[in-house]
């Protein structure tokens, strides 16, 4: 008990003090992006890991959140910060429709329907130029010069997201979600309205992902459909964050987010300039290889397979010593 309190205390201090100690904007940026992925990954995990409805289309909610924020300045002349809460809410509305269509399908077909949904929304955003400016994208002026405010905003969001999900998973909803994942027919016969609870899971997931999208708009100050509705770099990335860290664990996606953003950056920067330049061109290739590797060898992620990893490390150490 004591140990746990100390651990969380230290973690909290580190999280709060980080940008004050590490002044490099580059590292601050990486951590901000990682925290954003903590939100997306955790939300995806609520729907996929806990409820068993694997979404290949979380870019829908991320992109809709981002565009909701972006539309405030270009159409209403208001600050994009208005999009934070509204982005989450509009994402939920979109999720309502996505759920209505996609939950007719089970298992892999659900996954693919969400994938198609993501592509549809991307094409709409690309072609509906009067609303979205199409391929040109939306450019706004950042509110803050310093990264500090962004850091604390996204930190609060990430912590709130994890806490909410943790609470949900300890309540009736959580039990229902996992029951649905384990056996939908059994769940129905236990009196669980599976359609309703799948939708609830989807809505919560979409809300936080939409908020993350709105944050992205505010922070990066530029979006276009190819970026925020990207299949590979949003939808698949969300899956990877979840899987690498560990699906159906509270902290898995958080761990996964830091690892994935770290890896991505390592490749993008050619191992921080240590490796030859061409490596940076291979970062998408590395990404694909990583997908294959993780599915093969870490299907339950670092947190989920932690016991196995520990055992393996332990055993090799023992044989070594």
């Amino acid at each position, binding site marked *: 008990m004591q140990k746990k309190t100390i651990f969380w205390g230290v973690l909290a201090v580190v999280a709060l003090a980080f940008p004050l100690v590490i002044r490099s904007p580059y590292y601050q940026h990486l951590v901000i992006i990682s925290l954003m992925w903590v939100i997306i990954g955790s939300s995806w995990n609520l729907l996929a890991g806990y409820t068993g409805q694997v979404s290949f289309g979380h870019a829908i909610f991320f992109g809709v959140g981002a565009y909701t924020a972006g539309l405030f300045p270009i159409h209403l002349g208001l600050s994009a910060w208005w999009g934070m809460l509204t982005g989450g809410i509009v994402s939920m509305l979109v999720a309502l429709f996505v759920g209505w269509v996609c939950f007719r399908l089970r298992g*892999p077909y659900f996954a693919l329907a969400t994938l198609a949904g993501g592509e549809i929304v991307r094409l*709409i955003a690309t072609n509906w130029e009067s609303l979205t400016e199409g391929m040109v994208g939306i450019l706004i002026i950042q509110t803050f010069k310093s990264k500090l405010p962004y850091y604390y905003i996204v930190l609060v969001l990430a912590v709130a997201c994890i806490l909410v999900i943790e609470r949900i998973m300890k309540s009736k909803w959580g039990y229902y979600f996992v029951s649905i994942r384990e056996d939908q027919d059994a769940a129905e016969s236990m009196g669980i309205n599976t359609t309703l609870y799948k939708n609830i899971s989807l809505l919560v997931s979409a809300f936080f992902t939409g908020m993350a999208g709105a944050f992205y708009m505010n922070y990066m100050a530029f979006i276009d459909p190819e970026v925020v509705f990207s299949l590979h770099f949003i939808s698949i990335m969300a899956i990877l964050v979840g899987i690498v860290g560990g*699906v159906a664990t509270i902290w898995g996606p958080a761990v996964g987010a830091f690892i994935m953003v770290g890896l991505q950056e390592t490749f993008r920067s050619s191992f921080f300039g240590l490796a030859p330049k061409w490596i940076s061109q291979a970062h998408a290739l590395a990404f*694909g290889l990583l997908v294959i590797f993780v*599915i093969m060898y870490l299907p339950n992620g670092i947190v989920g397979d932690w016991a196995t990893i520990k055992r393996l490390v332990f055993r090799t150490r023992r044989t070594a010593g």
Partner: protein
Amino acid sequence: MDVFIQTIVSGILIGGIYSMIGIGMTLIMGVMGIINLAHGQLMMVAMYITFVMAHFFHVDPYLSLLVAMPALFLLGAFIQKTLLNPLIKVESILPENQVLMTVGIGMVLTEIARFIFSSDYKTVKTSYSSSAIFIGKISFNVPMCIAFGFALFFTALLFWFLLKTDLGRSIRATAQDSEAATLMGINSSRITVITFGIGSALVAAAGVLLMPIFYLFPDIGGAFTLKAFVITILGGLGSTVGAIVGGIVLGVAESLGATYIGMGYKEMVGFVIFVLVLIFLPGGLKRLTKI
């Protein structure tokens, strides 16, 4: 009126090729129960093979069928054997890991192509690339017609194979009930490897046939994967006849969309049909035809 007929004709011609793409995916779907999201990327590989053959060795694209199809058969079989089959034993909370694996494979193929050939557009010019036959005011693009003919031929060949050969029957048995098939002594892991090979060879043929008409770049695979996936859902999962109809429907719908709504929305037509099918006709066209 002429415009309309012209639109329909082009739609059907391209639809024939779509059918072939869709059948390959449907076959894999039926036997393995997964949707292969690297399908279009496999086609892209076949197209680059054709490109290399034509550009460096001056081989006529249609002759490349003899190279591209076996090559893709092997590539598909290799993927199934080394990457997908082992996953059956991997225990994970998410049952979709095979599908996700194909996404990873698709990305790797695309990026390797980009590495070798860069993102530039490539074309294979032939003397007949833009020639056309006219019947009345309606033009029939020659390579399109050839491609359509080949598509019919390969589809017929596939049906003969599935219906008349022992191997084909084993594949159908596995698709219907893999457990029962295993009990009957069919080696299901071998069947999946062969099926993935055949599906890949079919989509390779489609790629080769498209090469004289289309331009080629690494990301073309993704677009075709999505088309194949829409066709598969449209046709009713796992139904080969449904996939043929689905391919034609998609071809015609895209063609109509491009003519009457605008080029930008052409890609979206397929998805809109897809959503409509999900809402109003779950089970796809199979529901209507009962095949």
